[in-house]
């Protein structure tokens, strides 16, 4: 009896348990689907035909060779760390004071060279941190050769005093000359060769990093000759560019005494977004031996950068003014005149007027305004691509009395500049002026 009761109790327990389970689980069962939604029964069990795909992609196949080769190369570079090795070798060379140089002069012309820090080369920089003993060499495939050296000290005895000696040799064998004055014609172009040897002594002082004042004394010898033809007449062969009409036709030797004040508040040397740079220079130049060169030079250069609400928008202004004034019946040799034209990467030769050829305008004075609106269109980590819209307005003239507003020449254009960590390494710009359109591929910005 007791056993039956026990069995009945057990039965009720089990039944109650199952009913409980059913009650709790019933909503779940209601949610269950009558089919296996993850079934392996595929809607398209057959693999798509490779033939159809091949036909649809046949236009791409010729390019696949390029992809195949490039992929293999890139995988090999990454797998064998070739990029790292190259970078390490480059940095190792730099740690020994040798900085290789590669830059664009034009679309088809590159410049090569190296800077050498001799103190680093002999691993003595830690003993001579403020000393300079360096050299440089540059050559372009079709343009110039330059070599020189610099020796001196900065922060002398912990002050802002510095002193340097500089020697430089430069040979440009295909410089263009279109005559003197704002009305010269682009059709009158001639070619000449410029060879300059310069020895200079500098003494400067900077109380703060922003301010600097430098006194410079230099000897320069400039030889002018016919130059490489390049499809143009040589300077002596064209009657209008004869020895009698062009001062300094064969070159000059002269001494220069120069005083220069610089105030620089740019936040970066390139791609600056705020601040500016002001430079004022005055020099007296006197010819040696038979040279008739004797003139004062006044120079002013101002650039300013306005951040328009964000770093990605910058309005950049640049002004350059130069006047060379004869002293006591002296002359301003043509090779020492103010020059405008080109991109402006060699400002000691020609200042930025991008719609016109390099060295397009020569005269005793020059005024130049550049305005650029730069804005960033792409960024990836430290890489940045900027677009630049620019307007250049400049003219050359003789005396101030000859200055006329109507003589201003303008050029305008657009460009793209690629930089890494705000160091520009590629610029592609198109400029248009009265005399045509110029395309520039450069490795730095003009200001």
């Amino acid at each position, binding site marked *: 009896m007791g056993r039956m009761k026990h069995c009945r109790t057990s039965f009720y327990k089990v039944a109650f348990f199952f009913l409980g389970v059913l009650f709790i689980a019933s909503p779940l069962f209601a*949610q269950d*689907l*009558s*089919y296996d*939604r*993850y*079934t*392996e*029964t*595929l*809607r*398209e069990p057959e*693999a*798509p035909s490779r033939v159809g*795909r091949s*036909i*649809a*992609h*046949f*236009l*791409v196949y010729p*390019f696949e060779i*390029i*992809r195949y080769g*490039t*992929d293999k190369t*890139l*995988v090999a*570079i*990454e*797998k*064998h*760390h*070739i*990029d*790292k*090795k*190259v*970078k*390490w070798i480059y940095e190792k060379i730099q740690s020994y004071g040798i900085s290789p140089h590669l830059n664009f002069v034009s679309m088809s012309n590159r410049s090569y060279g190296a800077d050498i820090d001799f103190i680093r080369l002999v691993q003595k920089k830690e003993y001579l941190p403020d000393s300079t003993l360096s050299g440089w060499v540059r050559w372009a495939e079709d343009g110039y050769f330059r070599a020189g050296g610099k020796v001196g000290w900065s922060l002398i005895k912990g002050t802002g005093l510095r002193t340097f000696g500089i020697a430089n040799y430069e040979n440009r064998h295909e410089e263009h000359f279109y005559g003197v004055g704002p009305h010269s014609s682009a059709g009158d172009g001639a070619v000449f060769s410029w060879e300059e040897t310069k020895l200079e002594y500098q003494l400067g002082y900077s109380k703060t990093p922003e301010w600097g004042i430098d006194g410079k004394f230099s000897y320069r010898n400039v030889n002018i000759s016919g130059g490489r033809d390049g499809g143009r007449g040589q300077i002596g062969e064209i009657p209008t560019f004869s020895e009698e009409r062009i001062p300094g036709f064969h070159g000059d030797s002269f001494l220069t005494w120069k005083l220069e004040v610089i105030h620089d508040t740019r936040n970066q040397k390139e791609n600056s977004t705020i601040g500016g740079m002001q430079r004022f220079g005055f020099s007296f130049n006197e010819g040696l031996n038979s040279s008739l060169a004797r003139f004062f030079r006044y120079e002013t250069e101002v650039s300013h950068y306005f951040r*328009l609400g*964000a770093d*990605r*928008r910058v309005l950049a202004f640049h002004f350059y003014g130069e006047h060379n004034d004869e002293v006591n019946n002296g002359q301003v040799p043509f090779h020492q005149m103010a020059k405008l034209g080109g991109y402006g990467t060699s400002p000691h030769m020609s200042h930025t007027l991008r719609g016109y050829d390099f060295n397009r305008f020569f005269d005793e004075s020059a005024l130049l305004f550049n305005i650029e*609106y730069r*804005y*960033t*269109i*792409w*960024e*990836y*980590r430290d890489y940045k*691509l900027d*677009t630049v819209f620019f307007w250049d307005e400049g003219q050359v003239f003789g005396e101030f009395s000859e200055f006329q507003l109507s003589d201003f020449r303008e050029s305008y254009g657009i460009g793209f500049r690629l930089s890494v960590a705000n160091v520009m390494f590629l610029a592609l710009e198109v400029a248009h002026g009265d005399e045509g359109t110029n395309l520039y591929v450069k490795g730095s910005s003009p200001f």
Partner: protein
Amino acid sequence: MLKEAAHFKIFAWFVIAGLALFPNMGNADQAANYKKNDVGLYRDVFDQNIYYEGTNFLHLERLYRAIFRKKSRSANINIFDEVPDSNFFTNRHARTRLNARELEEGFRQGAPPSSNGKLTVTKGKFEGLHPGFYVRDDKGDEYLLKFDPLDYFELATGAETVANRFLYAIGYNVPQYDVFYFNADRLVPAPEATTVDDTGFCKKLDQAKLEEYLLYLPQGDDGKYRAAASNLLKGENLGGFSFAGRRKDDREDIYDHQDRREIRALRVFSSWINNNDVREGNTLDVLVEENGRSFIKHYLIDFNASLGAGSDGAKPPMFTHEYMIDYGEATKAFLGLGLWQKPWQKRWQEAGETFSQSPAVGYFDNRYFDPSKYKTQLPYFAFKDLTRADGFWAARIIMSFTDDDIRAMVKAGEYSEPEDADYIAQTLIERRDIIGRYWFSESNPLDKFSMTGDALTFNNLAVDYGFESKEGITYHVKIIEKIKKRGKELETIQISQPSVDLGKWLSEAGSLDILIKTEWAQQGELSPMVLVEIRQGKVAGIIHED
């Protein structure tokens, strides 16, 4: 006769020699000759950012689709519009809920590295000031140890481990990752250990070099180092897999990868865990043997650029908003003349142009997060081909994770500050809802179709998850009789409840196609359609419009 015998002899020798030289001939499984597919970042960048972008419209099929705005339907879907389990993907949490412990543990191949004993360093690597070590613990198990950037303790290791848990629970094959703490004195270089450092040259990894590497690593307050320890996958490494095409040497790899829904949907899942570095270089094919079967298993690896982490610190502000080289965004910026501010620039400006969040969090929030505009580093066609049906599939999986599920997975990151873990979990919870809301609004979010008697019932996921009110919803239902491959429209009805009584038509027609579009109360326009195939009174197929 003799001549014939001589010929036979020669033939027999050939057969014997052939069998000797090719003993596996005729056994395709054993004879399979798998080729390693070398992948890398440089190749990825060139292929995706330059080559394919340039040759895009030379693909006639793509050109046709671009002109006629045709979508490319995923190929590897089953009759119910789902992705069946494969060597790429296994339906996990959305199919059978994983419990909190399983979510937190993720994939298990073995135990984490031993907490005691020496760790023999067999190999080192050093990239961009970030060391990493291959180690063997005293059990003989091998691991890859990856670390945080110097000023971002817990950032990369946390992101890697947490993202790993998410991708595993979603269904992808991933390696085992664990947060692992150890003292420096446990590391002992093996006599044959080597390393490729920043010079790119292979060098001996000795104690001095090891100690030099450790200088680049952050330590906790207790002096211990923290790593994300990955148990090395067992099997033959066959390189990465491509997000386009298929392996020619794998007979099981029958669909082009850009047509695999789970590959396309990586874009959606990556947008959730903010893993913009999902790319071919971060995949791995491994030849494994399971249950006596040898096959290629396709893994996702390397998630240390997930959540708020970049590879060397907080995630750079343009990441997830732009491709590495983004022609479209650059063109827009160019035409905008610098006046147009990109969303990431607004977000960065609002952040004060600084990474102000906790170092363990990096740069991670939902400001300006738009699931439709989320971009991985590289513009894979597979991600661009994502359709609404693919997005819905991914969003439905994402929505299957509850708040507690997400917190359980974030717990795996072992963040020392509870606020950091809370913040990351909360951001992921919000992001889950943003993604769900977006993809459910883009598609027709009807699910769980079932026949109850003669009635076809279904759920509206947008209503179930509270994104939409059930009030005012109208379902436009078209009943089509299916006769062989042709359809005959029987009737169009409008209903407000998610149930259609098909009795009237089922008695007459054996095969019905039910085409449903949803009209939301506020929007007034019809959603894409869902087609439900009814055969012999049962749900026999489902298709969501692409």
